[in-house]
């Protein structure tokens, strides 16, 4: 029995959070430092995953499996593969940044805030590691509570509405998923083992019903159009850390759910529902982008841009070929990094100005050149400029979807134009134009804030210039996943196969050209 590293990663922050309760609430500084230390150690503990992960197998790794509630065959079953590993690591990283960005901006109930944050971290990592459906559902629901508190207690003026909306939206979706899980349990031979459930074949009609049941839970989380309207409210009202964790990790859960459950367990339904999913994704991309153009609130705009960007993610996932799916997964990471960074930046500037209205800004590049440079980089990564991580993700997704259906890529590509429009326009209205005298004497970033940005900057260039270092982790798992989906169906020839086929044909007929 190897070292239970995944359990450590799940329960260390939870225990850290509980330990935090022991500190007197006047000792604000101690609480912050303690939370920071816990989050740093969590990241350190997670690094062995990166280094000792076996990239040559799609089998689950670092597996822990214990019987738990044997009456219902419920197990404590953890493991990660090439799809989930990066999200575990990203969760650990993002939490540190959340602690840092909340350093001064959280003024009331400081202890409870950091406890919630750490509990949230444990639950998030639990979601990515759980291989037992019951356990998964527990973590899934457990995330809801600290997030609800983050918005509802430390949020903006309209926080109660936003928190309730977030809670109800997600809960309704989750309940349908619960029905789906129970159905699977009964149909699949009384087991909650996700891998075992994926190994079985279900009647297509049942698959379709289950697909939509899961869809309810996952689409809300992504969020896909038209169940996205909780996100702008949640983002707008949440404190900076809440927005960062929401954009960085939480909304990835939906897409992860599709990858982990819908696709392998319900392959025929997935193939059959490919078109509707692609269309919904396209609507998300274009619609989300257009709505961004009409926003007057800084956070709301970035929130809607998430709808658009996550449309790219689901597009990639449901275009069902290697490029697009790997692009989709990479874009989940990218979006977490870039949008997370944008929300960090907004949090920092909001701390200084206490306004989210775009028209209140202007000319900030003069007063805060360092901040302007960072924000420019994040903006460019968000519009997918080459050299940044956003480019490779969008490129793979578009290429993949082009191979599946060229017109899909054509429509999705219009999202790139709209994306550049709203992001650059936003940047122009905040940082360019004549200086707004209201912000004379505004403070430039301090060392803590720059340190908060640096990991994101490194990731943006790292993934942008050497994406292979991330893609390597996914290759085998994604190939296996696609085999599960397309292998069980009549075999829809994917665009890639056609392309390769033509290429092979083309080359085989030709005399070799020497160079």
């Amino acid at each position, binding site marked *: 029995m190897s070292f239970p590293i995944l359990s450590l990663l799940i329960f260390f922050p939870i225990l850290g959070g509980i330990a935090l309760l022991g500190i007197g609430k006047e000792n604000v500084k101690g609480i912050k430092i303690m939370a920071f230390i816990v989050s740093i150690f969590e990241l350190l503990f997670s690094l062995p995953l990166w280094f000792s992960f076996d990239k040559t197998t799609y089998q689950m790794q670092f597996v822990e499996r214990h019987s738990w509630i044997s009456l219902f065959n419920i197990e404590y079953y953890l493991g990660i593969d090439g799809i989930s590993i990066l999200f575990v690591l990203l969760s650990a990283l993002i939490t540190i940044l959340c602690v840092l960005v909340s350093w001064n901006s959280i003024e009331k109930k400081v202890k409870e805030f950091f406890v919630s944050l750490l509990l949230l971290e444990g639950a998030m990592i639990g979601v990515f590691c759980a291989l037992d459906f019951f356990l998964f559902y527990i973590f899934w629901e457990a995330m809801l509570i600290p997030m609800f508190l983050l918005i509802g207690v430390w949020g903006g003026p309209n926080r109660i509405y936003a928190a309730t909306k977030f809670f109800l939206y997600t809960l309704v979706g989750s309940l349908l998923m619960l029905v789906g899980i129970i159905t699977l349990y009964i149909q699949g031979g009384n087991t909650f083992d996700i891998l075992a459930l994926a190994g079985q074949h279900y009647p297509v009609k049942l698959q379709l019903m289950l697909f939509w049941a899961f869809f309810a839970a996952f689409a809300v989380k992504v969020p896909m159009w038209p169940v996205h309207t909780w996100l702008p409210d949640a983002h707008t009202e949440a404190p900076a850390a809440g927005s960062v964790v929401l954009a960085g990790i939480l909304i990835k859960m939906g897409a992860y759910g599709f990858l982990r459950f819908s696709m392998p367990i319900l392959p025929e339904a997935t193939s059959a529902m490919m078109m509707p999913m692609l269309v919904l994704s396209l609507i998300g991309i274009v619609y989300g982008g257009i709505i961004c153009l009409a926003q007057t609130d800084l956070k709301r705009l970035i929130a809607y841009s998430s709808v658009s960007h996550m449309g790219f993610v689901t597009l990639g996932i449901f275009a069902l070929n290697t490029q697009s799916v*790997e692009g989709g997964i990479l874009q989940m990471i990218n979006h977490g990094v870039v949008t997370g960074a944008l929300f960090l930046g907004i949090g920092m500037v909001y701390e200084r100005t206490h306004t989210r209205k775009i028209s209140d800004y202007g000319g900030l590049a003069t007063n805060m050149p360092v901040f302007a440079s960072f924000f420019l980089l994040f903006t460019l990564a968000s519009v997918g400029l080459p050299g940044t991580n956003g480019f490779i993700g969008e*490129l793979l997704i*578009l290429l993949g979807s082009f191979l599946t259906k060229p017109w899909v890529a054509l429509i999705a590509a219009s999202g790139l*134009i709209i994306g550049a429009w709203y992001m650059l326009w936003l940047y122009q209205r905040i940082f360019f134009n004549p200086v707004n005298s209201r912000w004379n004497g505004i403070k430039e970033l301090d060392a803590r804030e720059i340190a908060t940005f640096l990991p994101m900057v490194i990731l943006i260039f790292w993934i942008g210039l050497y*994406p*292979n270092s991330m893609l390597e982790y996914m290759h085998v798992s994604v190939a296996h996943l696609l085999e599960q989906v397309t292998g069980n169906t009549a075999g829809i020839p994917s665009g890639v196969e056609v392309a390769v086929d033509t290429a092979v044909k083309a080359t085989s007929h030709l005399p070799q050209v020497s160079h």
Partner: protein
Amino acid sequence: MTQLIWLVIALPIFGMLFNGILGRRVGYKVVSIVGPTMVFLAFLVGFGAFIETIRRGGVAVTVHLWTWATIGNMFSVPINLLVDPLSILMVLVVTGVGFLIHVYATDYMIHRDELGHVHPDRDFSRFFTFLNLFIASMLILVLGDNYLMMYVGWELVGLCSYLLIGFWYDRPEQAQAPIDLGADHEPIKLTPLLSPAASGMKAFIVNRIGDVGFALGVFLIWQTFGTLQFDKIFPFAKFVSENSPSAIPWITFLLFIGAMGKSAQIPLYVWLPDAMAGPTPVSALIHAATMVTAGVYMIVRSNALYALSPTVSLFIATIGALTALFAATIALVQVDLKRILAYSTVSQLGYMFMAVGVGAYTSGMFHLTTHAFFKALLFLGAGSVMHALHDVIDIRRMGGLRDKMPDTYRTFVIGGLALAGFPLMSGFFSKDEILAKAFEFSPILWGIGIITAGLTAFYTFRAIFLAFHGQPRDQHLYDHAHENHLAITIPLWILAILAMFGGLLGLPSAIIPVPHLFDKWLHSIFMAHGEVEAHASLLKELVLLSTSGIVAIGGIGLAYFFYVVSPTIPQNLARQARPLFNLLANKYYIDELYHEVFVKSGLGFAKNMAQGVDRLIIDAVFVDGLPKLVNSLGQMLSHLQSGYIRHYALATFIGVLVMVSYFFLR
């Protein structure tokens, strides 16, 4: 040197990092040494590779750096640099002209007050950071050995363009004085110039539209050929076009959409004139000499594909010819010196596309090269004037500057002569070659080209006569004008020499029995397909050549007559043909049209969607409405049923509803 070719990219990147991170601390002097030096070193490396390429006899060499992304064994993009005659030519142009412009900028970006004290621009180091980044990006574009790297460079140069157009991001939009038509006549109103920040964004978005076309073209290449490497695509082009006839026309068309954006062709040219809001060295380097020619480079690079799609090629030639004429007519009446040159750039790019459209790829590259010399020279000259006049660029406020600024005047005239196609100047040979090839293809194209040539000569010398000849129209400005320092005048003279003698690279071999160096040099990139070898007869060539010469001299003469001999003519003409003059002065109102049709209606649509669909239908009706509905139903029912039974009643009601709908629907 060839194996070290990555240095030509790495050196400017080093300069960018140095100036970007340390620039503010080390002061402007260090920055102005590091910035140009890096580009000069890159030029030396490029020159070494050039010599080696000559020794190799033009054989292409690929230098592998690293593998960017691999997915399965099907999708793999290596970062390779391709050193061949075409890329090395572009490297020399970019780093050579780029270096001169860097040197020029070290003086242009500082201001001296009356006492001679030096005030560098507030963001002096940021300027050189971006300028170095541009050089690196442009070199990625031309040195990549596959379409993905080309696309990467393509987008990155767009970024630099955006950053540099909006360099003076806090300047507001600028009103333009109306054009006076004399007493008793209502002056012609001009729309205000966009702010630099808005111009930068306009450039980026318009380019993005083209880029999306380019990206789709790249995807289609991938789908068709299963690779993006040039050397694996071009040999199979013929085979593919025989087997799936629609693939290559689509690829070439989609790629050309990218070229329309980057190289400012109809209908995507609108960003380039506004790009003049950037500092003048930027206009010279990015928006005249190098970046905007990327589209021409791309087509010449892809000649194996374009040669196989005659329809698309004809389309390109047509767009090019129309753009050339269209932009030249606008340039006739502009009052802003840089914008005259900008429309001239659009027009000259049109010539280049006309050339590559008719299959005269070398001629396109030849004109690209000479144009880089003389147009960079003209922009730098305009900048020199601006620098001396404290940023005034309106030619109506100049006049008589030739005495004050002799070097600028002489070099500007040389550049003007080259642009106008005055006999024996570089532009004469390159433009004539295009016209001759166009004539072979279709006399109509030639006709459009020759009319444009006449217009070009006229508007160029209109600008020269108005700015440098006659009486000063703004005495105050004139009194304070002065010739600039050597950092500005030496690059002017070097470019002037190139603009004069650049034509020697491609003398018409039908008339002068010397080898056409350009043809010889680029011969190997045309693979087996070969270029349409137009062997015009001596007589025909002579007639065409002298026609071009006469037209150029005629245009210059007309401008002399209009603006020096009897300067009242232009105003009279403008009064008589007021609607036409108004239309031209306001650039056919195309910018306004685009603004109404795309920007305004787009934003209006967005607003309606946000308020109507998102807020009202999805949120108010469904999300908030459903609970309210349930709530009010409950309350309604609670009137019927007293006490706690309402819950059960509601449940029953919903149950019935569900059952009924189930039976109806099944």
